[in-house]
Structure formats: C-alpha cells, structure tokens
C-alpha cells in the first residue's frame, strides 16, 4: 500500500467515525424531544432534558463542521427515528435519556480508536460528557460506559491488540 493510499484510507476512517458520532448526536437530539415531552412540565428534570438536548445540538454542529473541514459531506438528520421502546411515562422517558447517552458514548469511542491524538482526546472528552449525563439520568454509575458487554474480556481470552510484555 502506498503512502498516499494509506493516507486516503486513514482519512476515510476518520470521516466514517465522525459520521457515526454525528448520527448518534442527531438521534439523541430527536430522542430528547420525546424525553422532554414526557417529563412533568416545568420540572427540574425537564430543565435538565432541555439542557442536554441543547448540548447534543451543539455537538452535532461541531461534528458537522469537523466533517466538512476534512472534505466530507455531513449526513443530514432523519425526519424521525424509531424509538427502542414506547415512551409514555416519566420513568420511561428517563430510561430513554440514559440509553441515548449510552449510544452517544459508544459512538464517540469510535473516534477514540483513531490514531490522531487530537481526535482521540476529543472523543474521550465526549465519552466522559455522555457518561456523566447518563449517570445523572440513571442515578447510578457504570464500570464501562460506551463499551458493549461483549467487547469486555473474560479470563482466558487473548485480545487482538493487547499490550504484549514478552521478549521479542
């Protein structure tokens, strides 16, 4: 593989990761509209939902700008999104907010996997922000925000890119 084609592949990886994060932010923005509508009018929780909704809108704007700056075409948001479960009550709305944040955290972990250190740091900061919002909605913490359970190792696994401390 030539240097130019390697650079092209890397640039495609960056754009793909940014597009994934953008899609998650757009879905979260839509989802918070539903969350806010199901929380008691004028309640503190509804205020929090509004603040989080604005945070996701801003994050989507930032990702849109980052994709454009790298020569990509930001994928526009869908008109509507399929919710994982019906949301009729405040409890269901709170659970949806936590789930939206989990998915946003997972999407930003894709950016953390990129080799560019600036993007890694950006992705990690956003994972942290999403985890904080998720914990606030859930009322409890998680050991591995954003990481799917099946990606975690159990004893005896040999991961593909472990740090190997063995003599060459």
């Amino acid at each position: 593989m030539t240097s130019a084609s390697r650079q092209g592949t890397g640039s495609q990886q960056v754009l793909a990761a940014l597009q994934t994060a953008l899609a998650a932010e757009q879905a979260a923005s839509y989802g918070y509209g539903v969350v806010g509508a199901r929380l008691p009018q004028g309640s503190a929780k509804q205020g929090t939902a509004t603040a989080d909704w604005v945070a996701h809108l801003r994050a989507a704007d930032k990702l849109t700008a980052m994709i454009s700056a790298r020569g990509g075409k930001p994928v526009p948001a869908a008109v509507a999104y399929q919710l994982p479960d019906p949301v009729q009550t405040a409890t269901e709305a709170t659970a949806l907010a936590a789930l939206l944040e989990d998915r946003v955290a997972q999407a930003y972990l894709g950016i953390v996997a990129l080799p560019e250190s600036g993007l890694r740091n950006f992705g990690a900061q956003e994972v942290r922000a999403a985890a904080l919002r998720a914990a606030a909605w859930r009322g409890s913490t998680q050991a591995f925000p954003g990481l799917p359970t099946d990606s975690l190792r159990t004893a005896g696994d040999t991961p593909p890119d472990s740090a190997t401390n063995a003599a060459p």
Partner: protein
Amino acid sequence: MADRSASAGRIPAPGLSRRALLAASAAALPLLVTACRGIQVLGTPPPPPADVRTLQSAIAAEEAMIARYAAALKQLAPGSTSYRTIDVAPYASARAVQAEHMAHLAQLKSRLIEPPGIRPSTYAPPANPSATSRPTSTPSPSATSSSTGATGPRGVLGELELAEQNASDRLIAELGELPPSLAQLFASIAASEATHVEYLRAARQGR
C-alpha cells in the same frame, strides 16, 4: 554374549586414558554452566514498549485506588470512630464504586500478556512526572490510611472525589500511542471514574 557386549560398551575407546577423559570433562564444565544460564548471558532484556509501560502503570494505579477505597471503607464503616451518624449511604456508595474499580482492574489485567514467571504486582511503575497526581504503586495500608486523613464521612468522600478526578484526567492524558482497543478501554474507564466524582459528591451532600 549379551553380558559381554553390555560390558564392552562401558570400556573406554582405545587410546583414551581415564586421565584424558577427566580432563576433557573439566574443560567442558564452563560451557555447560554457560548454556544453563540461557538468555541472561546475551545481555539485559530490553525495556517493555511504551504501551506496555502505560498499561502497567494503569494497573498499578487501579490497585492503589482499590487499596485507597479499602482504607476509606474502614473509616466509613458503622462503628468506626469517624462514623457519627446513622447513615449507611457513604459506606454503600464507596463500596459500590470500589466494585467498579475491581472490574476496571480485571479488564486492564486481561489486556496484558506477560511472560511466565512475572507477577503483575512486581512491576515498578514507570518514572513519569505527569503521573504524580495519582499514586502509581500499591501503597501500604498505613500509607493509604494517612492519605485518607480526612475526618468524618464527608471528608473521606471528598478525598475520594479528588482521587477519582485525577485518575480520570490521567487516563485521558495517556491515550497517546495506545492500540485502538486499549485506548477505548482507557477512555471508558476514564468516563466511569468521572461519574464516580459526581456519585460520591451526591452521597457526600446527602442527595
């Protein structure tokens, strides 16, 4: 016949005296000893790569954090001298967070492939000036106790909050050259530790 051939096998070859055989054996002894020393005679093994050192440091830091929580839990336990109110929330909160640190430690250790004969606890953390905000070696119980010298549940939780924030910041600062999957694990643990800050703060403030 069988007896004669067997005994013939033990007779030295013609021309080699018993004294010559002994001398040859003595000369071969240093070679034998050198061979037994194996790879050590080839020189000092190279230091582990940077990602391995970073992972070892994170493992040591996680072990130190668990020890810190163990010391804090002693102070928060009902019946201890610093426990003056009938409120189990600080103790339960600290215990829940400690369990998540144990999960972090297990995952970090699972990412390190070690040669036989090396125990993780024998690693010396790398000299890293930026790591001073977080303990990188497992402290002795007395050292841990003195580090949580705060009085009362609120003081203990306040110190844990500070340690968690430092831990989260440090993990993000170390993402640099890690392999992608390990960088994702570090980022996820950093996020978890940031949520611990808020969780402990809520417990400290009785929310």
